[in-house]
């Protein structure tokens, strides 16, 4: 029976060559479903993770471009795999997307087809922003407004920026075939209407789906612990937490700022497993912070909701806003965000 089984399957296998790595009879979809089942039957996220290693960026990375990604507030989205996306066509995509944006902006106004729009779209790759060799290249989209008046200083103004990346997204990569490009994390900076436009174009062109990626309080605690654990050698920003108390008419926000060295000292005292961060340690770290607060202010922070965390490495808001501050840990932060994005789309 078994041999009969595999013989019956060969035509289908040949049809999509991307399947050759998989076990006989296990299609990507079924694999996917299994992973969904796994996720839901057990604890949703791994209970231990590696401490971020410094600078995992590869050599070919463009420092100018990386600097461009830092110190900006990005709104993050999860993105399902792009169908028939090709890195060789970036120029063509630039052209098509700018035409699309022009058409959309023009809509509802008196139509003058062929009008020269003062908008330029540039696609470019972000070499080296990846965790493993298998990760596809990240890429960046910029929308520039062409300045008309001054010919001397042709400094184009950046209207909107967005980038797509996948850092250590193995769990996703192994479930899709070659036709797809997996860049599950999308970060945007600029007017939401533009994000919506570009999103629409991508959804229509590559049959993908964007969803806003919110960060739960649970994941924010993880971020706080992981980022505190990072070794910093340069400038240190205050470690700060925001808790929100849902009360009417206005919600009350509690800001809790600690000197980064104190936070690090606290972390070192709860941290046991070398090279790793565990769930217990994260819980303990947050508990310590909360009980300290309670000692002084008699407020149980555990009864409120953690909405924002900011450290020297990065800051994150529960609404899915992120700002990465430290060049060294860029890839590490992105890896965690990629993990969250993959969790959302699985």
């Amino acid at each position: 029976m078994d041999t009969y089984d595999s013989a019956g399957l060969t035509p289908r296998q040949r049809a999509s060559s991307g399947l050759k790595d998989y076990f006989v009879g296990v299609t990507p979809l079924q694999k996917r479903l299994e992973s969904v089942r796994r996720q839901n039957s057990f604890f949703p996220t791994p209970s231990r993770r590696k401490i971020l290693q410094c600078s995992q960026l590869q050599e070919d990375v463009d420092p100018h471009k990386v600097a461009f990604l830092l110190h900006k507030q990005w709104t993050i989205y999860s993105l399902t795999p792009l169908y028939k996306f090709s890195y060789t066509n970036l120029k063509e995509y630039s052209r098509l997307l700018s035409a699309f944006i022009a058409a959309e902006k023009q809509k509802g106004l008196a139509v003058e087809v062929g009008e020269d729009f003062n908008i330029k779209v540039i696609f470019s790759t972000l070499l080296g922003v990846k965790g493993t060799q298998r990760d596809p290249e990240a890429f960046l989209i910029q929308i520039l407004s062409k300045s008309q008046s001054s010919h001397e200083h042709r400094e184009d103004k950046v209207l909107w920026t967005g980038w797509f990346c996948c850092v250590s997204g193995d769990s996703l990569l192994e479930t899709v075939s070659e036709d797809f490009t997996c860049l599950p994390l999308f970060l945007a900076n600029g007017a939401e209407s533009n994000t919506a436009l570009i999103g629409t174009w991508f959804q229509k062109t590559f049959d993908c789906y964007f969803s806003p990626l919110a960060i739960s309080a649970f994941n924010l605690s993880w971020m706080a612990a992981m980022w505190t654990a990072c070794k910093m050698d340069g400038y240190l920003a205050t470690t700060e937490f925001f808790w929100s108390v849902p009360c009417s008419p206005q919600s009350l926000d509690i800001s809790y700022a600690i000197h980064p060295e104190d936070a690090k000292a606290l972390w070192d005292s709860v941290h046991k497993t070398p090279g790793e961060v565990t769930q217990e340690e994260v819980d303990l770290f947050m508990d310590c912070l909360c009980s300290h607060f309670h000692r002084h202010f008699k407020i149980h922070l555990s009864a409120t909701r953690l909405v924002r965390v900011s450290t020297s490495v990065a800051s994150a808001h529960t609404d899915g806003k992120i700002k990465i501050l430290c060049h060294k840990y860029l890839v590490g932060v992105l890896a965690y965000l990629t993990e969250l994005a993959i969790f959302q789309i699985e």
Partner: protein
Amino acid sequence: MSTQRATKNSQVRTRISQGSNSFQTSLSSWEVKQKSSGSKLNSSMEDSKHPDDQPEDDLQRAVKYFEKGPMKTLRSKDKILEKHLKTVENVAWKNGLTPEAIDILLNVALSGKFGNAVNMRMLKYMIPATLISEDSVVKAVSWLCVGKCSGNTKVLFYRWLVAMFDFIDHKKQIGLLYGFFFASLQDDALCPYVCHLLYLLTKKENVKPFRVRKLLDLQTKIGMQPHLQALLSLYKFFAPTLISVSLPARRKIYFKKSENPWASALHAVRLRNQGPFPEPLKLALGPVNVRFLRRKCNSHSIIPVVNSGSYAKEGGEKKMNLSDCLGGSSSLPLEQLQSFPQLLQNIHCLELPSQMGSVLNNSILLHYVNCVRDESILLRFYYWLSQTLQEEYIWYKMKNCEEGKEFINFLDTVIRAECFLQEGFYSCEAFLYKSLPLWDGFSCRSQFLQLVAWIPFSSFSEVKPLLFDHLAPLFFTSTIYFKCSVLQSLKEMLQNWLLQLSVDTYMQPMTSSPLETTLGGSMNSVSNLIDYVGWMSTIAMRLESNSTFLLHFILDFYEKVCDIYVNYNLPLVVLLPPVIFHSALLSLDASILNQLCYIMHRYHNNLAAAKKKELLQKAKSEFNFSSKTCKEFNHYLTVMVGCLWTSKPFEKGDYFDPQVLEKTGMAEYKHSLNLVHHPSLLSYAASFLLQESPEERTISMSSIRGKKWNCYLDYLFSEGFQGLKLFRTSSIRCSSVSQS
């Protein structure tokens, strides 16, 4: 009317008050002036004596002047005309003109009352304050027919119309003039502008073969002009079959950026309108819904529109596209696919939709997607559906009534597609697993339960923690109606599983159930499912104190269970649990008893068939019906026959101690459960006796015996007890056995 005027007035007031306060006093007199203007009209000379008069007043006067027409006798005609033109011009460029003013002036400009130059000048300042009423445009167009205006004016009018197109409040009537505009294509001077206008107006229903012919004729006459090309490509977009000429695939510049005299004014109007301006009419080409990032625009459906020819193809495989064009063997666009035979004819050259989610609304495409074995199609659909379900559900839970309905409609569409394909979607399964733990058992209940029914076959041990562990608490704590709905959907789920398995076993080897590689394993899962539902029903019966209503649903489930071997050709017989059996047997409801008889009859047939096959293929018996099942069935059978026929209830087995029954004082307890005395049948027995002998004052139940017993049975069968009849034929060999 008066309220309308009042609001208009106030609009004017606010607009003016931004400029200068000194105008305010005169504004209140607008209405008065307008009323009295009839008598005052010929005093235009008088008016000019008051140079301090306010612009609104002047405008009013100017409009009246134009409406009335030039005074031929006056020598100072040109001066006055010039003055009024200036007045209107100033107001128009500064604030725009009201719909009423435009209505009047447009009429004047096209009626040819004044000279050509004046007409042109008037058209140039026809700038709306907010909107232009459709009626004005229709009236203006009607002037074009009487030949009062020059060619130049006509050209300018068309250009004006194109430029102002989006500020016209409605376009329905203008749409009706399509034929008229189309006829104007004849005019060489007008042609480019009329083309542009038609480009904006054309709807699918406007595209007719005769128009296509006309356009093609025109093209051969005047050559490949960009404006004609634009219109043709739009026609081709709507009706690709009608136009065989190849047009450049990519959109290029069709309409020259002509010197637009209204450009700056339009910008101002746009700014002015930005608040309350209603959503402008969409361009005919490519309706785009910006509904990623929570909808700012509502009213778009969740499911994308079927659209072939993705940009990706256009960009990525440019060369192939070109050769396609040259070879003429282009693939069939999906928009055109309308019937199943058409699908079969073109199945080799079908362009897949750019967004796979769009197949959900299209049954023909569902057929296609279901039969192609392309993983990437399924993955695209999977991702789209999963994410959409997930996100829409979040929005649904945020409780916006409209959106709530939208989500429910969406779920209904998904369920319809599943029913159509007779197959569950993986995305729905994943969605259920994610959302059931948080489900309140109330929102979208019917949809959720239907989705449950379509969960594809999988190992029960895997499904249980994901599905049943969340469903069971809801089941036990909810109302009887919820329990019944759950049982109903579990029945459907069982049926879907059985169908899937029977197809799989029929089409060896089993490819689609990799989780259970052997038939035995699959059967184990099914039997576990049945056992689980049996357990749930047993507890539910106790919780609902043996409700007849609930029992109906439970027996419905077992009606499926008892027939697995014969109906689905699957080697499985699972009996119903004792609690259910006895509740049904002792029920006060005759239809329950009938249903039980039917189920026992089917069990009998299934077991007999299984046994026969087992005897035939002794060597290759992959599945042994446990003798326990047979024994148990025989026991049930004995109990039933003992109760209903032989009046020897519960003799075998250790359910009751006979002495306990005797202690109850019921003298003839043995008879009290037979077909005559059974509580649910008592009324039938009584009416049977009354029918036999209507005059009888007292009826004796025990008189039903011997021949009368058989008559009574026939009576029962005629009353619809078909289950009982079948039970008798299969289980009671000698019908007279009962009579002791």
